[in-house]
């Protein structure tokens, strides 16, 4: 019997019991779709985080207190404003250094209010990070040096407090203290369900006074070029250690952050894929089970086929192809379902989902392999049936 004939026989057999074939495929469909969807979500999350970190700007060094260990709880910052001045001296250019001290506060304008993240910063922030101003301007050096009560609003905060009106020049209060709005950021949009426009920048000097603190949470330095980053980071850490011999400081680059985040999200994607893989395996066991039932049910048919000249391998091939057909058709439908669902999820929810070709190839390959692996035992059993015994079966 030719392979073409074997396919035809297998297709006819599956057609003859459509409902059972469909239900058997369902297990595979769900498994394959799960692989595609979960991997798409994992990949999407990873890409979004990477874009976000890269979007901060290039050649950035982030200086944080303590040893960089993403597993440990963050240490309390010992950085002060005079440390910032020391770092500026090392770098040699104030415009390359940014700082942040944040606090969650309620911001009011008239009767409207919003709880948001208020960040104390230097006037250099837009030069270090990629941030553009939509209306008005950013903070000035004299705002920082004299501790003026001026604020730049994230676009979401501006909309909440002022709607369509231009907020520049208006009064707001932050933690009960009056501020004047000098500018509004251009929108950045949402990512990973976090609204990146939900913040307010004020001078760090003002922030320390209002929040009643002297700490600086984090510092970022923009290196003049990529090659100078390592040397610069070593010198900054050295200077800070001299000033605080009892503390550790670390300077991490975007690549390092990306590496760690990428590893974590890679593991997440792997775990999701493994969970989905298990459901695919369960689907495969279902196929095997149904094929065994099918061999039993069709014992007389097998006996008859053998009586008229089917060789053991003709029968074996027929049942193997049935299993492979069930799983590959299930695989194709599952891929279509998975890709479709991932696209819908990406379109209508904040969950990013990016379909990757490898997950589709993997899901398809695994489902075909599952068909072969789980089809072999029933197929062999069918091929070895004694024709006389088979013909007598009820």
């Amino acid at each position, binding site marked *: *019997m030719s392979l073409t004939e074997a396919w035809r026989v297998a297709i006819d057999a599956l057609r003859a019991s459509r409902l059972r074939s469909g239900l058997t495929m369902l297990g595979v469909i769900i498994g394959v779709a799960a692989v595609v969807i979960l991997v798409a979500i994992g990949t999407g999350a990873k890409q979004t985080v990477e874009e976000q970190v890269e979007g901060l700007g290039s050649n950035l060094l982030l200086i944080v207190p303590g040893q960089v260990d993403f597993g440990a709880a963050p240490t309390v910052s010992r950085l002060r404003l005079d440390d910032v001045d020391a770092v500026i001296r090392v770098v040699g250019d104030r415009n390359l250094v940014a700082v942040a001290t944040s606090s969650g506060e309620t911001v009011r304008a008239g009767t409207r209010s919003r709880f948001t993240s208020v960040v104390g910063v230097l006037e250099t922030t837009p030069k270090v990070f990629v941030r553009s101003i939509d209306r008005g301007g950013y903070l000035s050096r004299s705002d920082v040096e004299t501790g003026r009560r001026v604020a730049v609003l994230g676009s979401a905060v501006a909309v909440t407090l002022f709607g369509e009106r231009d907020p520049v020049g208006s009064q707001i209060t932050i933690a009960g203290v009056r501020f004047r709005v000098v500018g509004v950021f251009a929108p950045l949009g949402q990512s990973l369900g976090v609204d990146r426009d939900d913040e307010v920048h004020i001078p760090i000097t003002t922030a320390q006074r209002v929040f009643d603190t002297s700490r600086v949470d984090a510092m970022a330095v923009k290196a003049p070029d990529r090659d100078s980053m390592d040397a610069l980071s070593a010198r900054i850490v050295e200077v800070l250690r001299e000033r605080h011999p009892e503390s550790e400081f670390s300077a991490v680059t975007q690549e390092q952050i990306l590496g760690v985040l990428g590893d974590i999200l890679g593991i997440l994607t792997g775990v999701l894929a493994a969970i989905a893989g298990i459901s695919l395996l369960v689907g495969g066991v279902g196929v095997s089970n149904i094929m065994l039932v099918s061999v039993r049910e069709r014992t007389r048919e097998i006996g*008859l*086929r053998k009586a*008229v000249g089917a060789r053991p391998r003709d029968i074996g091939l027929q049942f193997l192809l049935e299993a492979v057909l069930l799983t590959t058709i299930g695989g194709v439908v599952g891929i279509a379902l998975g890709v479709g669902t991932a696209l819908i999820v990406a379109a209508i929810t904040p969950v990013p989902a990016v379909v990757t070709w490898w997950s589709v190839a993997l899901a398809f390959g695994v489902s075909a392999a599952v068909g072969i692996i789980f089809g072999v035992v029933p197929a062999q059993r069918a091929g070895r049936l004694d024709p006389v015994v088979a013909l007598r079966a009820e």
Partner: protein
Amino acid sequence: MIGSAEGTVTALVAVRDATRSYQLDGITVPALRGVSLTVERGDYLAIVGPSGSGKSTLMHLLGGLDRPTSGRLLLDGRDVSSLSAADLARLRNEVIGFVFQSFHLLARTSARDNVALPLIYRGVRKAQRRRLAEETLARVGLAHRLDHRPNQLSGGEQQRVAIARALVTEPSVLLADEPTGNLDSASGEAVLALLEELNAERGVAVAVVTHDRGIAGRARRQITMRDGVIVSAVP
């Protein structure tokens, strides 16, 4: 190749001192206890005997569906003990046609496709298969039933489809195990007439197992079995 009714004396199928026993819960049940029989080209023989005497077991051996526990089985001149399962399957396809008491047609499959089935395993192309199946169905008087499924056919028609399926490969011997057992006398008579016509006009050797003395009497030879042995062969 086809022998005349007078019979070229070539053994088509033969068993020599063949036994066949089954193992049942550790007990050996002998179904055949030393049987020798030769089916020649163009032969027409009937096998009779009480239930359980081993008639079906013998038919399965003659058709190469089974192998003897001891003794020899020759199919088309070849000793079956030296053949693989695949070789034996090919020999069945080429030399033997089976007709069963319970028809054994594939459900949900048209008469045409049922008849064409053995040709699949012979590697005949689809168009050719269809043509041969339709011709053979016409030969058994079912040219008007090509697309009927088994459940849309009468018992007699189903058995004629089964005979067409046995004939489509142009076998040298037709083995029919109680072919009329499930049919009323008119349908049974039509089936038997068909077998006799094939024997007389095409020289196909026919072996029929039957409980019906009348049917047995019409064969050229009568073989009587009892308790797994042949107790008489006339002539």
